[in-house]
């Protein structure tokens, strides 16, 4: 049934990575991406790969999942490789020529670095969504972005919108299911006919869905008012995020790993 689809790609578990404070996880992911782009030598890149793989092992995420998230990247990688391989020119003689295009060592090096970066980038950010539930993610983002309140950025409102969206996705999916059945029982042909016919057949599904969504929104707003909702001012939270020893250890491990990756810059010659 449509109702059972999971939102995002959360893979529940109880590993140190799962238990890590979402704020630290978000910041560590951003840091990882930054250091990935600072690592231009072979050792740094290998360490980056090793780090993300180690985290997958610790988090006990099956590598099948990793493969699934990397698969959509293949066309992008092929495109990057072709582009870089043929259009980057080096100082020395070309390595070989294909028809009128010459391939240089620099081009090959650049390709390797780009492939590693793309793969690590996707693996790293996927790890964040695998090990953090959408609610924790929203919560972490809200708390991290709190300082933006100073410049009048509506942090609380954004987080509230995300929470409500997450809350209503299953409800609306279920409703879509019902409307589709209702329209089919009235003779709507949703799975046959030309492309334009099928698009037209969507209209009688979308219109009731929107009308109902607006009615729901209206009722939800009233219900929220009844519960004293008045925006983010003076609001407290049930769940306080507390820094635990697990958080401190994980942070320390990350800092050391990032430090080592960065330090390789000074000891090894860059590939590009």
């Amino acid at each position, binding site marked *: 049934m449509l*109702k059972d689809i999971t939102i995002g790609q959360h893979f529940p578990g109880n590993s140190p990575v799962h238990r890590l404070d979402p704020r630290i996880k978000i910041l560590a992911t951003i840091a990882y991406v930054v250091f990935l782009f600072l690592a231009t030598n072979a050792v740094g890149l290998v360490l980056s790969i090793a780090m993300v793989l180690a985290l997958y092992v610790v988090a006990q995420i099956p590598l099948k999942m990793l493969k699934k998230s990397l698969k959509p990247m293949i066309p992008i990688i092929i495109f990057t490789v072709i582009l870089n391989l043929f259009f980057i020119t080096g100082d020395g003689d070309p390595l070989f020529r294909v028809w009128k295009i010459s391939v240089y060592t620099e081009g090959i090096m650049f390709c390797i670095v780009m492939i590693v970066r793309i793969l690590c980038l996707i693996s790293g950010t996927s790890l964040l969504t695998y090990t953090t539930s*959408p*609610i924790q993610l929203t919560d972490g983002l809200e708390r991290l972005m709190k300082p933006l309140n100073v410049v009048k950025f509506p942090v609380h409102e954004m987080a509230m919108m995300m*929470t*409500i969206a*997450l*809350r209503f996705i*299953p*409800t609306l999916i*279920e409703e879509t299911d019902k409307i589709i059945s209702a329209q089919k029982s009235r003779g709507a042909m949703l799975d046959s006919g030309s492309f334009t016919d099928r698009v037209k057949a969507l209209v009688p599904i979308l219109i009731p869905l929107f009308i109902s969504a607006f009615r*729901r929104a209206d*009722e*939800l707003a*009233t*219900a*929220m*008012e*009844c*519960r*004293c*909702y*008045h925006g983010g001012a*003076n*609001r*407290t*939270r*049930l*769940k*306080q995020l507390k820094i635990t020893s697990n958080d401190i250890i994980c942070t320390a491990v990350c800092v050391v790993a990032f430090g080592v990756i960065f330090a390789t810059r000074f000891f090894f010659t860059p590939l590009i």
Partner: protein
Amino acid sequence: MIKATNLLFGYSEEREKALNGVNFTAEKGEFIAVLGSNGCGKSTLAKHFNAILLPEEGTVEVEGMLTTQDDRLFDIRQKVGMVFQNPDNQIVATIVEEDVAFALENMGVEPSEIRRRIDEAMEKTGVYKFKDKAPHHLSGGQKQRVAIAGIIAMRPDYIVLDEPTAMLDPEGRRKVLKTIKSLNKEYGITVILITHYMDEAAQADRIVVMSKGKVVKEGTPKEIFSQVELVKSLSLDVPQTSEIAYELGKLGHNLSTEAISIDECAQQLYNFLKG
């Protein structure tokens, strides 16, 4: 005490007034059922009790505070909780306990106190065992009890329920009604229950009947339902128990339509059949 005096309200200029001079009081500790046909203004009246709607003319007072007093708005909403028909459209958070905590978070209650109060509220409504679940995995009746828990976590003195059982199956309906009754009897919360189910109304201390934006009749369930013809003329039903007595009465048998509980009715029929 909630007290509405000569309350007048219309949604728009052109249309007929939805409330046309309503007088209504709810004393502390009462269990009141509000009856009336579709569109007679029950929901509109309910929304006046916690300042979701404000009177055009007349006043609504909650424990001495006028609903038009801006500075008392949140005090009023904390005192008068409100539950609606569709549980799906009242649940805000993606986890049951977070939803129950929503009102308290808005009120700025300390986290440790929130924890204590929501656990208590979830115990009272019997949803504690679902506290870590996602709302969309619960049945309608369970969701409605979560919504009630979210309200009583505010520790209101009054709870207004607008057809809370209309979308539920008999089992869900029974459990929700049991919860409502226990809130009233055991915890002393004043209950104002809007309903189309006469068997629910029969359990109230007092029934208020509305028609065309006015309160037309008030009394105990016995007083109201024994006047079968009057109730029917307002396009409402009487409980089946009164109906039996009424129909037998039409055939010339002398039975009391005041026997509205099933036990009373059964006893009366037993006596009648024995001769």
